[in-house]
């Protein structure tokens, strides 16, 4: 027996964040992530940290802005409609180059929609989060253990690039209990936070801002951000390949969907179908090279998402016309069944 403990995804992420040195949490209630702030409310004060329920998601993300600028490792969490409300604030955080971790336990939209698991915020998370040329690093765990591991990495990536990082899950990841282990991890070398605002005692003053009135400055700033994202593309791509060695078809899926796809693949393999899985773990940076390479091997791709089709565009961009890329979606808060996927898979292979 290991020292694993059984924990809900939401609580495990909170615990992992605290272990990663997160001292401040600002959030606003929303299903299905409520156990995360509740855990923080319980534990953070015990360690001298601060939990504060903000008056809204808008306030919460701006508190994050302040706390990050003040030098803290800080987190907020929410779910789809709440994330939309944070859009402007996230753009400011990215523009001002502040690190933070944002959890989105996606629920089905649009509008109030439903609270079932969904992946319909993919475009928002990876491309159009808010106004302006910026990106989040987006990490999508498919198990509670991975959620724990990625939470730690999220804080490091945030600090390394001075950029917000999003952990993208859903009700399944957040509500599910699985055994987890909190490994002791050595922190990577991270740049010193010499840019924080804490009263300019004995040093040059610091200024945190996203306004850049001169177009040359803003242009340079935006290219600087773009270079950061390219650097992430070099260094931060994460993915899992499964049974790809001899695969003739590749299913591309992430998060909860990938779990179901694994079952579907097992069943397909049992029927002699040579199918493998490519599971993007970092949605941004997207593992495009891996998919590009796979395009040399497989006959076709099938992308499965809990949406009407979003990541499939990134798959198509990576495949770049070399192979066909089919799509299967479940956009209403229901996890697709392995059987449905199998049917689609067979259809695609014809």
């Amino acid at each position: 027996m290991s020292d694993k403990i059984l924990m809900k995804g939401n609580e495990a992420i909170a615990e992992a964040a605290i272990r990663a040195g997160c001292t401040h949490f600002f959030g606003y209630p929303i299903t299905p992530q409520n156990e995360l702030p509740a855990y923080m409310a319980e534990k953070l004060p015990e360690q001298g940290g601060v939990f504060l329920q903000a008056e809204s998601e808008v306030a919460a993300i701006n508190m994050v802005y302040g706390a990050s600028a003040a030098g803290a490792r800080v987190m907020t969490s929410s779910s789809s409609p709440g994330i939309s409300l944070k859009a402007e604030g996230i753009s400011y955080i990215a523009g001002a180059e502040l690190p933070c971790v944002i959890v989105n336990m996606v629920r089905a939209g649009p509008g109030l929609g439903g609270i079932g698991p969904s992946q319909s915020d993919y475009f928002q998370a990876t491309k159009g989060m808010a106004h302006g040329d910026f990106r989040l690093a987006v990490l999508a765990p498919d198990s509670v253990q991975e959620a724990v591991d990625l939470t730690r990495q999220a804080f490091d990536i945030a600090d390394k690039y001075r950029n917000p990082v999003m952990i993208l899950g859903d009700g399944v990841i957040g509500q599910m209990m699985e055994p987890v282990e909190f490994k002791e991890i050595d922190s990577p070398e991270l740049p010193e936070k010499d840019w924080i605002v804490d009263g300019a005692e004995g040093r040059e003053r610091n200024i945190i801002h996203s306004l850049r009135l001169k177009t040359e400055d803003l242009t340079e700033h935006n290219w600087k951000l773009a270079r950061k994202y390219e650097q992430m593309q070099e260094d931060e791509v994460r993915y899992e390949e499964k049974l790809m060695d001899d695969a003739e078809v590749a299913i591309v899926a992430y998060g909860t969907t990938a779990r179901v796809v694994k079952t579907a693949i097992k069943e397909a393999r049992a029927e002699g179908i040579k199918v493998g899985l490519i599971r993007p773990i970092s949605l941004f940076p997207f593992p495009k090279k891996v998919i590009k390479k796979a395009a040399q091997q497989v006959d076709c791709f099938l992308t499965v998402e809990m949406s009407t089709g979003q990541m499939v565009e990134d798959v198509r961009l990576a495949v770049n016309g070399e192979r066909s890329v089919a799509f299967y979606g479940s956009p209403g808060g229901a996890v697709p069944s392995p059987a449905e996927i199998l049917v689609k898979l067979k259809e695609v292979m014809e």
Partner: protein
Amino acid sequence: MEELAGRPKSLTEQEFHYCPGCTHGIVHRLVAEVIDELDIQEQTIGIAPVGCAVLAYDYFDLDMLEAAHGRPPAVATGIKRVHPDKVVFTYQGDGDYASIGTAESVHAASRGERITTVFINNAIYGMTGGQMAPTTLEGQKATTAPRGRDTKEAGFPLQMSEMLATLEGAVYVARVSVDTPQRIKQAKEAIKKAFKVQLKGLGYALVEVLSTCPTNWGLSPQQALDWLEDNMIPYYPLGELKSVGEVE
């Protein structure tokens, strides 16, 4: 020779970009003087709003942030919760503080957040070119109230300080004006008290400063001061609306 008036240490050398006669500059100076006098330049973090004062981060010689429109109280909360021993203030216009930022203003006050707000009420949106503010007076013209503010359509000018003074967490609430040397002195005293309240950890402190926007009021700087005196002060009475606890 003793210096009676001059450039406070907590201002940078940078020239203000404000229009001629705009009272933003006066209030900047007062805040800087107070910080100097309390000797807290190296402990203070200031937050610039979105509004004409957006570049305040260039003017205050302090650690500074620029916050999203209306969100300085939330940003200040974030900072203060990380550094409870430091001094955090927000400097905000009426659009910022009393319109888009209403929720953040009310809740920072209600939480008794230990921060100080300097709230510039110039009854207009200066930066964006003269739109109606929540504090625009009845009948006062604005680009978005071309026939003058009609209270039937646009509601009544918001007495933000009176409203916030009802909250237990708001321990110091004062309204001042900067239209005469005398009132400028009083304004400084109020600002000083609002910082002391924070230093004592008593709760949220707010100073509303009646100010002018000659450009968008379409008046000369002096006419603007006169208009303030004649029109704003009657509707927005000056004085300490609330002062709980001892600061001296």
